[in-house]
């Protein structure tokens, strides 16, 4: 009987959480907006020695979906950890459209 009460409580809490998170708000667990907010970061970057930088070597594979904050974090990582000061262009593709950014000396400048 005690176990059944636990099951009922868990079930009701889960139902409420599923209704809350599943259909509104940005929640992670139990929210499933797959493909409805697609974002990609197309990078064309080189380091200070003019060697190409391939982000696919650093990211979790198949995870090019960076936003502006993550791009900035990646450039900081390249500077702080790898000692690389990137330059080139980055195209952010998301629900707002395409935005091309210029990167100079390891920072986004436009």
């Amino acid at each position: 009987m005690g176990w059944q009460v636990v099951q009922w409580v868990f079930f009701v809490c889960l139902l409420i959480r599923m209704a809350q998170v599943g259909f509104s708000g940005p929640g992670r667990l139990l929210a499933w907006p797959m493909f409805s907010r697609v974002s990609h970061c197309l990078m064309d970057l080189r380091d200070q020695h003019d060697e190409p930088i391939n982000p696919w070597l650093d990211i979790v594979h198949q995870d090019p979906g960076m936003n502006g904050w993550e791009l900035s974090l990646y450039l900081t990582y390249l500077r702080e950890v790898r000692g690389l000061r990137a330059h080139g262009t980055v195209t952010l593709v998301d629900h707002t459209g395409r935005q091309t950014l210029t990167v100079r000396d390891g920072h986004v400048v436009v």
Partner: protein
Amino acid sequence: MWWFEAIADGFRQPHASIQVCAFRVVLAAAMLFKFGYEHRRGGWRYFAPDSFVAYRFRREHPDLPVDQTRYRILYVAKIAAAAGLLLGVFPRAAAVVAGIWFLFELTYDRKYHTAFLGLCSLFLAFSPALGDALTYRTVLAFFESPVATVLAQEAARTRVDIFAQVLLVLLTAQMYLSSAYRKLRSEHFMSGAALHDFAGSLHRDRHAQVYRDTWYPPLMVRHLIDVPVPVARRRWRGPAVATVGAEFLLPVALLVSVTYPVAVAFGALMHVAFTALLPVRLVPFSLATVGSYLLFADPARVMAWLGWL
């Protein structure tokens, strides 16, 4: 519908153990596939001190004390858990360990398929039937008795606590409904732009990918990717609308006995299409989701069918 009756009866309904055990095997296979391809793509080194993954993790979760050593302990534990789940060795504990791994994985790699596999694993741990059928003991028994006899014995095993199955059906149904609702509200998706951006970006980056995971046939590239944006979006709109419709209908169609076989075939076809967009990463998700269709089947009918066999 059996699902509502099971809830009304306080999650007590006779069911064949082999039904949930078959899903256990599919889920474990999905996990092992995922762990295998991630390992090949450098998963073991994700938390190396100079890696971007570890750098981002430390920035986002400064309070979580996970370094390379602890990461690798968890890494070995996840593989042991998936193997345990597949073979039915301490399956409930294995399901909990795998579930905890997936929750951890979400802290450094947020993916919806990871969340789905993790929740499936944790909910599966509620089932007392996990070790009743399709385990390493089944394989050992094949050496002593005919395969049909062994499977018939396991198919005859029943349990009454159906809580885990109720939860897993609810999870898949909520996942489809939530996904359909959010897609419907997304102009980016409904216009066809999201699918075009997604396929187009991966196609554009195809040569930069160290491990080639996506490949689109030339016919698809000519007609759906390398075309003017308005044309491409118009062509992707049909599949986008069809996906939303299918995701809204599938949960109900899977629960109704009459439409169940058609829903299974249609759902499987839909997941084949999803997987074609992202062939490697979506295989585990598609396996787990289509595998969960096993749990939508009316337990009474499954028992009757197994008895008839």
